[in-house]
C-alpha cells in the first residue's frame, strides 16, 4: 500500500536547514537560485532528506534538479517503487 508523502514535512525540513519560513519552500522554487542555498546547505539538505525518506540522493542529482518540484517527484517515485517492491 502506498503512503502519501506530506509536502509540509519537506517544507519544514528544508526550512529548518535554510533558516527560512516553511512557506517559502514551494514547488516552483529552486534551492540555489531562489532560496540562496550554497553548496554547504545542499550537503546538509541531502543528509536530512536521506535520513527522513530513506533514499540515496547524490550531490550531482540534487544539483541537477531545476526546482523543488524535481526533488518532490524524485521522492514520490522512490516511494512508489518502494511500495511496489
Amino acid at each position, binding site marked *: 500500500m502506498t503512503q502519501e508523502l506530506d509536502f509540509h514535512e519537506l517544507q519544514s525540513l528544508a526550512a529548518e536547514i535554510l*533558516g527560512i519560513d516553511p512557506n517559502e519552500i514551494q514547488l516552483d522554487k529552486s534551492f540555489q537560485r531562489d532560496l540562496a542555498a550554497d553548496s554547504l546547505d545542499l550537503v546538509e539538505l541531502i543528509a536530512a532528506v536521506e535520513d527522513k525518506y530513506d533514499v540515496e540522493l547524490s550531490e550531482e542529482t540534487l544539483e541537477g534538479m531545476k526546482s523543488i518540484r524535481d526533488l518532490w517527484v524524485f521522492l514520490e517515485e522512490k516511494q512508489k517503487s518502494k511500495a511496489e517492491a
Partner: protein
Amino acid sequence: MAVTGLGFVTPIGQDIETVWSSLVEGVSGVGPITRFDASDYACRIAAEVKDYDAERFMDRKTARHIGRYCQFAVGAAKMALEDAEMDPRKMDPDDVGVIISSGIGGMEEIERNHSALLERGVRRISPFTVPMMIADMAAGIVAMQTGAGGLNYAIVSACASSGHAIGEAAEIIKRGDSVAMIAGGAEATITPLTMGAFIQIKAVSERNDEPERACRPWDVDRDGFVMGEGSAVLILEDWEHARKRGAHVYAEIAGYGGSADMYHVTAPHPEGHGAIRAMRKALTKAGVEPEEIGYINAHGTSTKLGDVAETRAIKAVFGDHAYKLAVSSTKSMHAHLLGGAGAMEAGATILALERGVLPPTINLDNQDPECDLDYVPNHSRKADVKVAMSNSFGFGGHNATLVIKKTEPN
C-alpha cells in the same frame, strides 16, 4: 588607547548593567550542568549562559551554521559596538579590525559531529563542522556581521587568549594599522569531552552540592576552578579618534606585557616567574610605578597551585605595596571563561575603575595562610583607584598582563 565600548554574554549577565550589578552584589553564576547529562561525572557544576537568544543578533541561518562560542561572540561584539556608538560599515573597511580569541574553539560541534561519524557514518558529518570548530571563526564571523574589515584573527593561548587579544589589539592601533579594534574572547566548553578531560587532570572543583560556593579563590578549601562559558568584547579606539567623535571613554589600556613560564604544560611556575615578568613588562610599557597600582583583577582560578603562585608573583613585583593594593578574583562569580576570561576580567576591571567600586572575591571564608593579600573578601568595596592591572595565565605557560587607567576628566 581608549576603551569606548563593552559587550557581555556571560553567566552573570548579558548586558553591562546586569553584569555590573552581579559583580558588585557578589552573585554567582554557577549551578548544576544542564548542557548535557553529567550525572556520572565527578564534577557536575558549571557557570552556563542561560537563555541566550542568538537570533536577537543574527539571522536564523547564520545562528545555525556557527558554533555556540561564535554565537556568543557575535552578540557581545554587536553590543560593544552599539555601546561605543560605532558602525564599521560607515567607516573605511581598514579602519576597524577584529581579534576575538577562543582557547579551544567549537568543542560542542566537534563532539556532536564525531558522534555522528561513529554512529551514522562519514556522510552524516555536517558540512558546517569545519567552520564551526575552528578557533578563529569568531573573529571571521564578527567581521562578516559588523562590516569590520581590518586586521582579523584569533590568538590562542588557552586561558590567556583574550588577555593577549586585547593587548595585541592595542598594539595594532598604536602602530597605525587601524583606528579601532573589536577585541575579546569567547568560549563554550561545557561539553562531555571537555568537562571529562578537565576532571581527569583534577583541575575542576567537585563541590557539587554547593555550586555557588564552589569557586573560592585563595580559600583554604578551594578544590579547583569552575568551568564557565560566554564572551566579552571591548572596543579599543585611538584616543584622538575617540575624542574627536565625542565618544564615551571608559578607561585607557595603558600597558601590556606577555611572557612564557617555560615550566610545565598545565602547572604554573611555583614562584610565578613568568607572571612576574609579564606584570613588570606591562608596568614598564605603561610608564607606571608599581606603587601606583591600586587594584589587581587576578587570574585567581581557585586552584591549589595557581592561587599561591600568583600571590607570590604579586609580592615579588610589588614588594610591601602588595599588602596595600586590593586584589580580587571575579572568577569567584562568573567562573572561568577560558579563552573569554581575559576580556571578561578586563571588562570588570574597566567598570571597577570607572565606577569606583572594587568587585569582591566571593566564598573567601578561610584565607589560605600562603595567600595573605587583601582579596576584597565577599563584599564589594568603594575605592577611587586610578590604575589597575588584569592578569591572565594559560596552560602552556602563557602569561598576559594589562595595565588599565581610569579616564581622567578633561
